[in-house]
């Protein structure tokens, strides 16, 4: 099975406090640590496991800038066979549909049976996988937490739906699946693994290389635009306690006693 996994380099929101620059043009990016989008990491692991069982190849693709290569290389070190970078100033400012149309062109450069994305990324939009599938006219499933290859062109998949239930379906390949966290346990990548793929060449495709019209992508083609970031005015919010740990613990014990939190 030939699998393409779409990954995104994002500020690691588990490791960073995200705040907004004066004027709201962007989030404050100094001192942020970046990593691969967490959902995408599960998608890469799933692709590698499928290929380990069924044979085939895993290609990791990312749309970004000069910094994106380290993320692709890290994912390749997990066991993906190839990397692919999509880099062009014309891509900047793309909305979800723009990103999906760039990825569509990349998908059509290859011969893939399956395209995986993370279920969502830093912007919480959860949109690119579904748009990409529609543009390719392939079937799609979101928040996938189980993939079994059934033979023929059929996959048995599970979607994680509300309340922790799993919706099971059969889907025909080629298809696009967006992968939910928890589907597997992504393998650890050490320095040694990254060194192993350090010299592997990663092809770079631009808008021209993908046959894309710059007017249809990037900020020029975007119908959906972020105007600014802001921090909503704080509501009443929590009553914040301060003091030494000893003092904090005493205050909490009194509050918990009063509210029936201690038995």
């Amino acid at each position, binding site marked *: 099975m030939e699998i393409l996994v779409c990954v995104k380099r994002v*500020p690691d*929101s*588990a490791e960073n*406090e*995200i*705040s907004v620059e004066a004027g709201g043009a962007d989030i404050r990016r100094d001192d942020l640590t970046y990593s691969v989008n967490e959902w995408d990491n599960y998608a890469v692991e799933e692709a590698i496991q499928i290929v380990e069982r069924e044979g085939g190849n895993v290609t990791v693709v990312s749309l970004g800038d000069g910094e994106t290569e380290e993320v692709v290389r890290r994912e390749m070190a997990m066991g993906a066979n190839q990397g692919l970078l999509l880099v062009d100033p014309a891509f900047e400012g793309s909305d*979800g*549909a723009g990103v*999906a149309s760039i990825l569509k062109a990349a998908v059509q450069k290859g011969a893939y049976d399956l395209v995986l994305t993370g279920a969502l990324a*830093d*912007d*919480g939009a*959860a*949109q690119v996988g*579904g*748009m990409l*599938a*529609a*543009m390719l006219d*392939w*079937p*799609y*499933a*979101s*928040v996938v937490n189980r993939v079994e290859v059934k033979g023929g062109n059929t996959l*048995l998949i599970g979607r*994680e739906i*509300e309340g*922790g*239930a*799993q*919706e*099971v*379906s059969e*889907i*025909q390949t080629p*298809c696009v699946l967006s992968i939910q*966290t*928890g589907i597997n346990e992504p393998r650890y990548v050490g320095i040694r693994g990254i060194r192993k793929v350090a010299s592997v060449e990663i092809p770079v495709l631009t808008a021209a290389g993908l046959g894309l019209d710059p007017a249809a992508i990037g900020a020029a083609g975007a*119908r*959906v635009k972020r*105007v*600014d*970031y802001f921090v*909503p005015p704080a509501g009443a919010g*929590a*009553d*914040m*306690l301060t003091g030494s*740990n*000893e003092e*904090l*613990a005493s205050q909490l014990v009194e*509050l*918990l006693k009063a*509210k*029936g*939190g*201690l*038995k």
Partner: protein
Amino acid sequence: MDAKVFVYAVHKDGQADDSALELLAAAGTLFPGCAPTALVTGAGSAVAAVAKELAAAFPEVWSFDAASLAYPNAELLRPLLVKALPAGAVVLLPHTTLGMDLGPGLSVKLGAAYVPDVVAADGLEGATLKVVRQEYAGQVSAHVTADVSGGAVLTVRGGAFRPGTPAASGRIVDQSALAEGLTARRKFVEVIAAEAGDIDITREDVLVSVGRGIGEQENLELVHDLAKAMGAAVSCSRPLVDAKWLEKARQVGTSGQTVKPKVYLALGISGSFQHLGGLKGNPFLVAINKNPKAPIFQVATVGIVGDLLELLPVLTEKIRKG
């Protein structure tokens, strides 16, 4: 802009989901003066019952009753809606796993703008719709504009728009014929209910809930010790289940359990809407987090910015001593 607005109405057991009236409220706020049409899909008598219920709130209801629509398979609903909707239509979906499944592709097939997870309206000027979204798991908000001249598909966060008390005597239009001949390359097989765990956190009055901020698996010991001293049960947010540190049955959130405790300690939980979606009943909520900007502090009753590893042992010891 004179938008034709449609609301996809989710229903269960013959009754409309709360999201239907929330989306009606969202439609009126986002597109003032619009007369939204509810879309009800399904199979059998439930469709007519839900259509009748919604006709008391919406000026028009389209019902689609067909055996193939018994389960809401987004891969079938998408071509159905593409067939049914007029050019330039605006479609509102709940931002749920169905909305996420259906919406992005629907926007492509309709040639419409897509704006997911809308939390507030910010005005409509001509064909430019302005809304508020959140990014980075709710740590920051963003104003977003969308050119809706070619229509739009919007998913709307649950609880973001307060349902009104609309009164209508809407017209019900039977559109079932449009469902004939639909095919999909994804076939629904079954729904497997969540596994029941050793513990039922939905029945607990006091929950000590732990999130990613606990850091390492071995630190969970501190949480278990505290819960034991309090006589409380341990619950958690999603990342701990993904990491296999705690079982799925302990997960609070839209993809886990919905709980109604009297007291809820949120330890190292940032407070994503998915997590808070599983916390009902307005408990006494104590949040302890090292990040002063964590969204959990917006909803907590009492907050502490601090280090769990230092504070928890002191707290546990104090409770043990009475």
